[in-house]
Every structure is written in C-alpha cells, then in structure tokens.
C-alpha cells in the first residue's frame, strides 16, 4: 500500500483544479469552494493515514468536499436569514455517493475546468490577477508559493487574489465556456496567461532557479490540461510543444557558474530528449491540421533547433522561412529582430545587421535589451569591436537579469582584452 501522505500529495497536485472547478460551479463561490476542499484534504490526511488511501482518491475527495460545502451552506442559512450570496444547487449533489461506496464504483465526475480557466483568464481581470488566480485555483499552488515564484510580498499577492475573487462575485463574471463569437479571443488570453507563467519561470536568474522551474512545470501541466480540454485547437498543441521544446534546453542554458549559455554554445547532450520528442510530435501533428498560428510557428522554429545535433548543422534557411511566416502574422518588432538574427546565420552578419537596423526603424527597440545584444553580437562577428563594445554596454544598462548581465560582461571582457 502506498504511503497515505505521498498519495495525498500526488492527488492534491493532480486533482486540485478539477475538484475545485466542480465545487465552484456547485456553490458559485471561489471562497466557499476553497474552504470546502481544504477541509476535505484535512479529513483525508487523518482518514487515509488510519484506513489507508481509497482506491479512487479523487472521487473520495470530491465527495467529501461536496459534503463540507453543503454543511457550510446550511450553516450559512441558519446563521441568519439574509439572502445567501451563494446559489447552491442541491440537485448537483445527487450524483455523488457516500465515500464508502466509491471504492467499488467508478463515478464519472463532470469536468468543469474549462469554465474555471476561462473565468480565471477573463479580460475584465488584470493580467496579474489572471495569472495569480489561474495558479491558485487551477494549479492548486498556495499563496505563499505564488508570491515566492513572482518575488512578490505575500500580502500583495493575497490582496490581488481577494480583489479578483471579489470582482468575479460582484460584477458577476460568468462561470461559463464563452460563446462561439468570443471564444477565439478568450482562448488567446488563456494561452497568453499560460505562456506568461512559463516565461516567468524560464527567464530564471540563477538564485531563484529552483522555484522558477516549478513555474515552468506548472505552465506545461496547464498546457496539457488545455490540450486535453480543447483537443481540436492546434494552437493549444503549438503552445504546449513550444514550452516543451524550450524547457528541454533548461539544463544546458545556464552553466555551473550560473552563466547564460547561448544556444550556439550549449552542450546539446544535456537537452531533454523526451521533451524534444514529444514537442516535435505535437507540433508536427498540429501543423498538419492546416490552421497555422503563432505558437505553432514558434514551436516549429524551436523544433528545427532541437533537430540539429550540433549548432553548425542548424537548418537556418528553414528557420528564416518560418520567421518570415511569423512576420506575416504579427507586426512585432521582436519577431523582426529574431528574423534578422536568423538571416545573419544563414546569409552572413552583414545582411543580418542591416535587417536589425531596419527592425528598429522607428526606434521601437530603443529600450530593448535584445536589440543591442543581437546588434553587438553581429558587430563582434564582423570584427567591428568598437561598435560591439558600445552596443554591449547599452544592452547592459537595459537588463536587470543577473544571468544576462554576466553574459554581457563576459563578452565585453573578451572584446577589451
């Protein structure tokens, strides 16, 4: 028999989002749902320790949490006759049997996570609130964990969550899957939130890398949930593929001294083959559906890198072609910058440099770290050291990330020796 506490921990991570989503639908309240689930976990801790874990732990927890929820509603009703804020629907409890019976029956629980994810990422909430709420409810991360990961005081993060939940309740943000006319835009917001969580973890400065990696893992898990819930959306697969392919390089990106290692210099034997295989498979399947999107293209670019055994073997022509496709879809100057860098690899630094300059035609990249870093890189390759030093120095003033700063300092040292 597995250790009850291990099982509980696993069930917590795996089932939290799904159970809370159901509880929120039944109670119409994020707070009541959280309390009920917390109480259910507490019950589980003592009961499973004593009697062993049930065969269907998720079902056990859901049922107990539903009972706790019903208790809370009854308490609420008897305490005062004020009109209850909650719209508890008793009928929704009926399919749930007593926990004792669950061991021998397979109960199909409704999956309400899609409603939950769309509510958490509702455009009327700030992006910060969307991220915090998604991690708290769908991911089951504690307020402390989220605050640490985002380097925020716990009180501010808690406040952010309270305000978001209050707005959902008072402004009545619907707990529904959006209608067909708006679901496209809403889904983009959901994808953006997940990718933002991933990037927050990926842009790790060495000191926090441990906590930050948790964010990457959580984002990937959320990406999987989204693929599972909306399997016919190729961009969901594109996003998951992109995250997996970027994550596959995690151990090679920073060396033992905490220094950033460029893609070109990375030890490719450290790349995670399993993540690469899954990522490539996902993006190939997604692209075959013929509904190309931003994430799919970015994933395809990452896949081309992943397929090259050495940096020299990189198929830069294909990467340039993919960036051209991306440039047609977005007018982002950052994409133009990356396109220029790829052209530099494929057709030489001179050509790349002129494209970089034109990407910054209106001064849009004037305060962008990567603009100066890429420019400096090409100037260095062209042997124009003075210009390279100047650009590296400018780049240094534009990043607060210590890993990036150290990388630039190292380059500057090489140039001024």
């Amino acid at each position, binding site marked *: 028999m597995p250790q009850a506490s291990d099982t509980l921990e696993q069930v917590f991570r795996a089932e939290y989002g799904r159970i809370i989503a159901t509880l929120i639908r039944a109670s119409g309240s994020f707070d009541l749902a959280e309390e009920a689930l917390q109480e259910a976990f507490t019950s589980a801790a003592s009961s499973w320790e004593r009697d062993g874990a049930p065969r269907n732990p998720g079902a056990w927890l859901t049922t107990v949490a539903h009972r706790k929820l019903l208790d809370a509603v009854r308490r609420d009703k008897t305490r005062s006759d*004020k*009109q209850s*804020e909650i719209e508890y629907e008793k009928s929704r409890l009926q399919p749930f049997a007593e926990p004792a019976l669950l061991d021998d029956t397979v109960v199909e629980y409704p999956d309400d996570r899609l409603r939950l994810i769309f509510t958490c990422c*509702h455009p*009327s909430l700030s992006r910060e609130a969307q991220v915090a709420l998604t991690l708290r409810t769908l991911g089951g991360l504690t307020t402390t964990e989220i605050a640490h990961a985002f380097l925020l005081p716990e009180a501010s993060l808690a406040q952010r969550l309270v305000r978001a939940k209050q707005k959902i309740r*008072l*402004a*009545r*943000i*619907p707990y*529904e899957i*959006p*209608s067909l006319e*708006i679901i496209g835009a809403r889904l983009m917001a959901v994808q953006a939130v997940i990718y933002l969580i991933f990037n927050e973890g990926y842009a790790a400065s060495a000191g926090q890398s441990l906590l930050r990696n948790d964010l990457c893992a959580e984002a990937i898990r959320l990406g999987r949930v989204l693929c599972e819930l909306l399997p016919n959306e190729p961009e969901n697969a594109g996003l998951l593929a992109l995250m997996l392919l970027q994550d596959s390089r995690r151990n090679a990106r920073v060396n033992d001294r905490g220094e950033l290692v460029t893609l070109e210099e990375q030890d490719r034997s450290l790349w995670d083959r399993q993540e690469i295989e899954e990522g490539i498979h996902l993006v190939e399947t997604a692209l075959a559906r013929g509904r190309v999107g931003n994430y799919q293209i970015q994933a395809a670019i990452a896949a081309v890198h992943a397929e090259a055994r050495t940096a020299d073997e990189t198929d830069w022509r294909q990467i340039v072609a993919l960036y051209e496709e991306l440039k047609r879809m977005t007018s982002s100057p950052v994409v133009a910058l990356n396109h220029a860098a790829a052209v530099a690899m494929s057709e030489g630094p001179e050509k790349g440099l002129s494209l970089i300059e034109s990407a910054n035609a209106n001064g849009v990249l004037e305060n962008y770290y990567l603009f100066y870093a890429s420019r400096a890189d090409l100037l260095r390759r062209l042997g124009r050291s003075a210009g390279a030093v100047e650009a590296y120095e400018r780049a240094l003033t534009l990043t607060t990330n210590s890993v990036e700063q150290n990388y630039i300092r190292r380059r500057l040292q090489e140039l001024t020796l």
Partner: protein
Amino acid sequence: MKYMLLIYHDEQSWDGITEAERQQIYAEYRNLRGELESRGQFVSGSELQPVTTATTVRVRDGKEFVTDGPFAETHEQLGGYFLIEAENLDEATAIAAKIPSARTGTVEIRPLVEHAAEAAA
C-alpha cells in the same frame, strides 16, 4: 443583475462632427434603447448636458462647498448613461459594445449593489 454603463466621450470632437452625423448617432442610440426595451433590459438612460453645466458639491464639517465644473477634468467626459438589466458581465459587455460612443470614446461598466447584505459586506 443591474449594471450602470457610463458613457465617456470627447465633447469637443462631438461638437466637431456634422449635424447629419450627429443625427445618425442619435438614431443608433434610439435603436439600441428600443432593442433593450423590447428585451426588458432597459431600466433607464439619458444623455447628459455638457460638463460646462456641471456643478460639484462637497460638505465638510457641515459646510457646503459648491463649485463650478465636474468632479475631475479629464480628456473624455461623462456624456450619458444606460442603466440595464443583464445576466452577467459578458452580457453587459456585449450591450456596452453596441453603444455608438464606444467606437470613439469609452464605456465604463459598473455593477450595482443589489442586496443590503452585499452593501454591508
């Protein structure tokens, strides 16, 4: 659930358009109101006189201070409102998006406090 839709627009640009354009927009407003009324979602609504007619009152230590002008000088001014009945924020948002001034100005959506219990909370 009731929502207040506060309609902000730039009064100067409103003055700058032709009479025909203004009539066109008024017609759109009347249509929207009719549509809401037919669905039982219209509670009230009106255009407001320009901010040059606004008066602000504050009472401090029992003394009344009456001044000329709106609460705050802003680029866009409160020019009208709709009070509507909607199922949820998405429905309210869909209605707000149909307000002609949403194309040039801004519509702020504010849920009304509906129960005494919520007001106290």
